[in-house]
């Protein structure tokens, strides 16, 4: 089995995350515990090999914090909406399956977009076409073509937000050009 070597820099986010999980589980962030956690996380990352996640090399915290807050607000809105639909509409709810072609072809960004739209109002990823980075979404409570368009725009704007946070420079240029137009 041929393995691609992963540089430590590429693996660092995974290792840091594993150390945080270790500390959180022990509820102990003393240096000794963290050091032992670091040793264990290196061992785990070596033993249970996974293909590296390709990061774009940029991360903009200034966009990330408002995005996280808006995301939390949308999760609340989604839950309220679903509660209302479950009680008021129930079996008579109308749905749609919508295809949205994303700008980005990075696995990480497509996955992140899929996760975010699964958690916000009325959409769920049914199928992913990785070659064209198209997401097929199942959307709750959509009764017109207008609703389909609104959903597509919303998904694309979420992707734009994620690109601003951690997309590559080329993708960022595309998003900036679109915003200017």
């Amino acid at each position, binding site marked *: 089995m041929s393995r691609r070597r992963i540089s430590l820099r590429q693996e660092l986010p995974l290792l840091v995350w594993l150390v*945080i*999980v270790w*500390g*959180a*589980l022990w*509820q*102990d*962030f003393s240096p000794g515990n963290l050091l032992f956690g670091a040793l264990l996380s290196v061992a785990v990352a070596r033993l249970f090999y996974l293909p590296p996640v390709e990061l774009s090399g940029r991360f903009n915290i200034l966009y990330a914090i408002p995005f996280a807050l808006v995301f939390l607000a949308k*999760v*609340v809105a*989604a*839950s309220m909406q*679903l*509660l209302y*639909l*479950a*009680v008021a509409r*129930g*079996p*008579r*709810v*109308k*749905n*749609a*399956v*919508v*295809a949205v072609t994303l700008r980005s072809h990075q696995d990480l960004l497509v996955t992140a977009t*899929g*996760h975010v739209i*699964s*958690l916000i*109002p*009325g959409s*769920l*990823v*049914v*199928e*992913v*076409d990785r070659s064209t980075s198209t997401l*097929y979404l*199942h959307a*709750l409570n*959509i*009764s*017109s*073509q207008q*609703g*389909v368009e609104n959903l597509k725009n919303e998904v694309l704007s979420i992707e734009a937000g994620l690109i601003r946070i951690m997309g590559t420079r080329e993708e960022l240029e595309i998003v900036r050009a679109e915003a200017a137009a």
Partner: protein
Amino acid sequence: MSPDSTGLDAWVDVLSAVFMIVGATMSLGAAIGLLRFPDLLSRMHAATKPQVLGLFLLLASIGLQMRTWWVWPVLLVTWIFQLLTVPVSAHMVGRAGYRTKHLHRELLTSDELEAVVQKAAAKAAREDGSGDG
């Protein structure tokens, strides 16, 4: 915890009580949705969204009640794992459900995946045919 006269403890208690009630209501909403929605895909909506918020609120009220900072990281890690795994499991169930046709087509206003699936199925059938012959 001894009750103090500043009233801060009381406010923390009120806040965590509100979180607990709202969180439990969200989980109840998920259960109602599971019962009342017509097909598998719309039920997956009910199974994913409200309980993520419900769990968040319940974890927050645990954090408020424990009054020690080192429970927060483990609660946060719990919630992040929930955020990461719930969409994946919903996607897997939804995908399998769509492929095995566990959905009510008459309730869909539009379906942009059906044509793609049929094209892929036709292509696979053609390739099977030429492979056998």
